[in-house]
């Protein structure tokens, strides 16, 4: 062990703000070289997988929604798809469209929250969106109204936007009438224009020049931008179905974190909007493609700070897709398909706002859950965030500790980490050691 000298410095930030959840960062620097980067997730574990055991399958959507208030639909969707696989159900037509629609609502709400309230203040130099609102009087209300448009979709279909109540195995407990959906249209049309302005706005931010080599992982569907379904693909050679997830993706526990690290083919990888956009931009709408071209945004995007651009493009996509789905909606005869319970194991992966979310369930003949496994996007990205910090740190070493710490927080926020999902405060602790 090198001896610590007078040059050893420790920098600590009690909590990284504007992320969902509690985590800490420790960076050890020795002789001006980055030694260790540990992203520690302190969010106390909540043991969902354990207490799903012994519950009836019908209770699963209500329980897993509580893993995360920001993306409850993602949890409900991965769960119902996995359970439907066991019962041999395929949800098609208008019910499938409604699932896509409510998921679009969640993407809009979650992405608008991150773009406007959590990340944009970093680029414009504010502590919060509320502080930003004084100087950007038009922008912040635009973001809040966009978010509200997403919430309106979720509330109409799900009863409320946080922990919606209508999603169930086989479909919904209630489906909307055509005229109810039409009631959303005017606001969604406004929001579509606001989303175009959002992409233009964020495209003009100043970005640090940083482009690590990522392995992107996302779903891919032959005909559409992925939400509920698709094969799992990566920039490296990989094309598998969700049933093969556990054969390729391996979770490791690290001593310093309550979230597990996930690797594919032994290496870190990236999930989320950037990965999704890079692997699926051919399925964007003409308008979304046009806005990218107009702003000279070339894909693939390799800079993690461009996550805010990817998120904004996805808001636009989700609004256009919502309008398309509403346009073709006919109220289905049944709100849910009947379920014939049988025992078995089912796996599914869907695209949560923060990236692929894998669920596996084993149920018995009475429909009672015997085993469950959930791999959230933030724990998949955790290892990748550490790698990025390792690569980004050298350019921060000349800075005073406090500023270096703030810059690290910004890198972490690019990922929109949802630490509640991964198992909340970010303590940054930089240790500077010298062996001389």
């Amino acid at each position: 062990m090198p001896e610590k000298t007078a040059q050893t410095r420790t920098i600590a930030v009690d909590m990284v703000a504007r992320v969902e959840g509690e985590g800490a960062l420790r960076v050890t620097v020795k002789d001006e070289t980055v030694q260790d980067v540990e992203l520690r997730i302190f969010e106390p574990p909540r043991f969902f997988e354990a207490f799903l055991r012994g519950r009836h399958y019908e209770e699963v959507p209500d329980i897993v929604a509580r893993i995360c208030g920001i993306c409850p639909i993602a949890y409900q969707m991965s769960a119902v798809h996995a359970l439907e696989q066991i019962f041999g159900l395929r949800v098609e037509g208008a019910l499938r469209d409604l699932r896509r629609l409510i998921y679009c609502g969640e993407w809009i709400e979650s992405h608008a929250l991150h773009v406007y309230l959590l990340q944009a203040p970093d680029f414009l130099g504010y502590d919060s969106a509320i502080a930003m609102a004084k100087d950007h009087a038009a922008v912040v209300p635009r973001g809040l109204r966009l978010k509200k448009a997403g919430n309106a979709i979720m509330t109409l279909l799900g009863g409320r936007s946080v922990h919606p109540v209508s999603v169930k195995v086989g479909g919904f407990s209630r489906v909307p009438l055509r005229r109810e959906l039409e009631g959303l249209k005017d606001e969604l049309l406004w929001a579509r224009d606001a989303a175009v302005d959002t992409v233009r706005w964020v495209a003009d931010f100043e970005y640090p020049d940083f482009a690590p080599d990522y392995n992107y992982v996302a779903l891919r569907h032959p005909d559409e931008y992925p939400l509920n379904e698709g094969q799992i693909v990566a920039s490296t050679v990989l094309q598998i179905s969700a049933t093969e997830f556990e054969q390729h993706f391996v979770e490791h526990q690290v001593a310093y974190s309550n979230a597990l690290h996930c690797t594919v083919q032994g290496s870190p990888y990236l999930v989320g909007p950037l990965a999704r956009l890079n692997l699926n931009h051919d399925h964007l709408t003409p308008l979304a493609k046009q806005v990218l071209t107009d702003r000279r945004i070339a894909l693939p995007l390799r800079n993690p700070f461009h996550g805010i651009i990817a998120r904004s493009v996805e808001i636009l996509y989700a609004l256009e897709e919502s309008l398309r789905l509403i346009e073709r909606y006919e109220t289905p005869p049944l709100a849910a398909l009947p379920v014939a319970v049988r025992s078995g194991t089912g796996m599914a992966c869907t695209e949560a706002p923060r990236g692929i979310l894998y669920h596996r369930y084993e149920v018995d003949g009475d429909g009672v859950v015997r085993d469950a496994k959930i791999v959230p996007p933030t724990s998949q990205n955790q290892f990748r965030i550490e790698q990025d910090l390792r690569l980004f740190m050298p350019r921060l070493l000349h800075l005073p500790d406090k500023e270096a710490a703030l810059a690290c927080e910004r890198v972490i926020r690019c990922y929109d980490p949802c630490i509640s999902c991964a198992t909340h405060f970010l303590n940054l602790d930089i240790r500077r050691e010298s062996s001389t």
Partner: protein
Amino acid sequence: MLDQSKDVNERRRPSLAVFKFASCDGCQLSILNLEEDLLAVGQALDIAYFPEASSDMKPGPYDIALVEGSITTAEDAHRILSVRKQANVLITIGACATAGGIQALRNWADVEAFKRTVYPSPEYIQSLSTSTPISEHVHVDFELWGCPIDKGQLLRIVTDLVAGVQPRLPADSVCLECKRRGNVCVLVARGIPCLGPVTRTGCGAICPSMGRDCYGCFGPSEGARKGPGLPPNTASLAKHFHGELQLIPVEVMRRFRGINGYVLPFRAESDLWESKT
């Protein structure tokens, strides 16, 4: 009550702090979901501490502290004491903070076995064997029920406090709300085991309006016949589930052991039916 002694014009803006313990962030998101009202709240109050929304974290004391989440670690059991010291009025928001939350399902289980289920090296995980509401640790001034809370109720209580009015929140059952909305009763008409008769109002009867049973996310209502502050008649509802709707005891037990399973009336009912399984 907040200090209302000074003249309105001289009064400084009351400060608000938001703390998080073990939770899903859904109740904090309900604050951000105030949308237009959020900016108004930002003007009426000094949002002094809200890490989820702002990097500007000012030290206490605070006039109003909102606490989300339950106590699940020894560290958090300690931290809540300092939150209490810094808060003039402390309000718990949501089922986690008010009743222990869904994570209180661990209170019936072997947490060491849970750790082994989720983590290959359970010894690294620091966690208490229980998830407990804030009121088991410190004095709580007001409780906002719900998983998540209703943002209208939150706005109401904060407005009342700022205006110097004693806040009062309804405590009767979801059923009454259902009647006001003209819903068809899913329990009577469709034989679905709905917890509405014993669940606190506040949500606007969302679930029956969406064609399904209430699963108790606002916690126990107060017993209408027995008087304010007294528990609802869970025993009679449970008997109905078992006798008329033919639920077997374990199913009755699961009904009560949910999002608010650890709060006393629901806890006692679920324990009773567990003993019959």
